[in-house]
């Protein structure tokens, strides 16, 4: 399955690139991301809650980045497995300076979605993936424009993250469960591929 799209982000390419490579930001902006733990240079283990409609669950997986040409492009590789199925994706991300401090982000993803989520949810996967990616970019843009804090505010104690995980210094945990925007396009919310697409973008 192929998914591609673009987004305009309000920041110069250098800032966008930096934000997209900052796990502290990513864990707060990737829809459904519970934890993101660095396991090596540009490599992370992630736990993401995702699904389509009733086919929902927790994915455990890995994300790593290659082919980084800062600040213009990188390739993100994500793979994960959980009760709803399996996801693996290669996402080519390109950043283009549009002037006036605006960056055009283009992504081109080739994803394999297996298990129940692939066979039963297929019809709406692309739509859900794009929607999730859109949510992610909106969250990243909010960080870039200063509308949202770039790092976690300590007062917002994690509600759904186990204490020991939240306490581990090298694990970036999500402060609160993501809430889908009111009147979202697709019932059932986010989905693993979109998350994978978004995971390192």
């Amino acid at each position, binding site marked *: *399955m192929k998914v591609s799209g673009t987004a305009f982000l309000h920041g110069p390419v250098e800032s966008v690139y930096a934000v997209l490579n900052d796990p502290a930001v990513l864990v707060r902006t990737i829809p459904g991301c519970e934890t993101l733990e660095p396991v090596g240079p540009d490599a992370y283990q992630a736990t993401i809650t995702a699904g389509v409609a009733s086919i929902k*669950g927790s994915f455990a997986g890995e994300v790593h980045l290659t082919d980084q040409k800062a600040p213009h492009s990188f390739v993100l590789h994500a793979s994960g497995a959980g009760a709803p199925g399996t996801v693996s994706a290669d996402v080519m991300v390109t950043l283009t300076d549009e002037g006036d401090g605006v960056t055009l982000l283009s992504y081109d993803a080739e994803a*394999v979605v297996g298990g*129940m989520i*692939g*066979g039963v949810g297929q*019809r709406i996967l692309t739509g859900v993936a794009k929607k999730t990616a859109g949510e992610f970019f909106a969250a990243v843009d909010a960080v870039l424009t200063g509308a949202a804090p770039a790092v976690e505010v300590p007062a917002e104690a994690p509600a759904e993250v186990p204490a020991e995980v939240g306490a581990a210094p090298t694990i970036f945990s999500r402060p609160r469960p993501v809430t889908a925007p009111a009147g979202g396009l697709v019932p059932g919310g986010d989905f693993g591929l979109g998350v994978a697409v978004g995971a390192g973008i």
Partner: protein
Amino acid sequence: MKVFGEPIARLEDPRLVSGQGRYLDDLGDQSTLAAAFVRSPHAHARIVDVDVTAALEVDGLVAIYTYDDLAGRVADPLPVLIPHPALHAPRTGYALAPEVVRHVGEPIVMVVATDRYIAEDVCDRIRVTYEPLPPVVGIDNAFRAEHAVHPEVADNIAGHLVQEVGDARRAIDAAPHRLELHLHIERSASMPMEGRGVYARWEPHDRSLRVYSSTQTSTSLRFALAHKLNVPVDRVEVVAPDVGGGFGVKIMHPFPEEILVPWAATRLGRAVKWAEDRREHFISSAHERGQRHTVRVGFDDEGRLLGLDVEFLHDNGAYTPYGVVVPIITATQLLGPYKPGAYRVEFHSLYTNTLIVTPYRGAGRPQGAFAMERTMDAIADHLGLDRAAVRERNLIQPDEMPYDHGLMFQDGRGLVYDSGDFPATLDKIRKLVGWDDFATYREQARTEGRRVGIGLACYVEGTGVGPYEGAHVRVETTGHVHVATGLTTQGQGHETVFAQVAAEELGVPVEDVTVVTGDTRRFKYAVGTFASRAAVMSGNAVALAARKVRAKALRIAAEALSCTPGDLDIVDGVVRSSAGGEIPLKTVAVLANPLRYAFDAETTRATQFAVGGHLDRPPIEPGEEPGLEATDYYSPLRSTFANGAHAAIVETDPETADIRILRYCVVHDCGTLINPRIVDGQIHGGVAQGVGGALYERIVYDDHGQLLNASYMDFLIPYASEVPKIETDHLETPSPLNPLGVKGAGEAGVIPGAAVIAAAIEDAEGFRIDKMPISPSELWELRRRHEAGEVPGLKRGVRP
């Protein structure tokens, strides 16, 4: 009194439509354990690790099995059911995958728990680590063989067969006209309302196994299980309970679950059950249909075939447990009612990382009919001739029967048509659909801004393949008749038609006949229900067994009435002599079993001091057996060939390209009809699946071998609203090969579906349709390409 040939209502329906049917998942009780399976989410991957740690704490878990737990023959590869010399590289999977998985859905772990919910929860907690391998998906990729499904079969070719009669290529090259066509049929699948299922009980005290399976062959499954589990065959009984549809997929056996569930029952000493869910049916049972054909044909000015050369590629999925039966059927049945001139056919059967391919109703014939009938239409268009006329010129004539094509059929016997009146069939379909008046209708529709087209397609179907079926017929001392045959029932109405056969032969009311099928406790030797063979095979076996019973009854009655059997007839359950004597059949049944001990007034008549008889002869004569019962078998020389023709009128929406079937006509010749109502029902069901195969049903894999439409949200099956009213006419050309003169009818309705609807759409649109099924969006795209000059129009210049 006559009941054979009458359209009586189905005897099983009051039971089935009032909820009294007992299907696989109705069996068992609270103590029955449930199985569930961890299946591969990858099309091709190495299994690196199976971690069950997180699953072990689940309350209610009974057992987890992986390949390493399997022992003896259960750990062996699954059988190659139908070996064939052309299947040079057969490969089968295992009950549980040992190292490598080769399609999405392949079972890796079996979980047994106190109920299915718990078993599924356990499956969710088992972590399998995979190393993905490059998947081979699609016929072109398989043939290109950049990657292999099985490392030792580098070219992905499982089987390769060439059959040739005459020098087809030379005949084509020398012909005044030549055409080449590329004709594709996509993958589809049987979709029985009830999926597969297995329920097994093991009795440790006598080491016996009872297995219930939603199968199309209980007898063969019994032998396979006895072998796999190393249990004497007389300790294994297999019963097919009520089965909610099969359509071919359940003739495949033993499926992994059919071995594993009984095996687990023997290991655990507990009853174990598994009922397939719909998603499992999509990814773990079997598919069919996917083939790409290249047809080269040479013909004369009149459209007569001079040479036909067909090469096709068949996608057999990841394994070949059922052999190359489907492409063999295409290769032979493609010829339909025509004389091809010189004929050459060649196929390659290819491995792909997709689910296995085994017969689905029609079994290679819909593809063959599509290839042949599209060719007929192309010839007609090329020469500017009427499509029916071209067909007529190529038909085998009744006086040429039996007609030997010089090819070998799927049963290893000659492709010899036993009978049929093909010109009469074609004539009837033309009249039924109003072929010759269609131009007027088209003009009228055009003035209304409507776009309509007509098509027709013929077929011949080899039915009733051997090697044999048998039946046992017993008259009870109550006069009730019990019939048992070994092949299975999936809703066809066997309880009715076999009762009609027995009632007619024995001269008893049909209500007095009870039929049991697919229960090895009642009949142990059988082949199974497939290839439109039940009426031919078991129908004749029931007739032969009933004739034996009748002969015995007349012999005993003649002695009792002091006459000769030739003086006797059985009417309404009473044996009557021409002299006016009579004796009820139930009394004959009493007399047939000389007794020492009586248990009621009736049996008193058979005890030693009651019967007269000859004191100088034993009570049971040499060669005789007690009881008014008999077993007999029917084993045909070869298949008997049914035939027919379909015609359809379709309307395509000029704006949206929506496709609507306005009329659908069927002319059908399956020899002598046992029950016309049931034959009509078979045709209706077949046409519904034909419409599905033409316009809706397709199995879609992506490049990674993921099945994209594994649910009824996305795999479309026609509802009643999409199935047209079916107008039917019958011919009855009795088969000379069997006592009843019957031919099979089960698959006929589906065979020309894609061909006839493609022909009608083509006629409406004015450009060729080479690929089925077709959706409105695909038709819309073809229109766009046609307008852009990328898809050539028909020569006959249909102007929508």
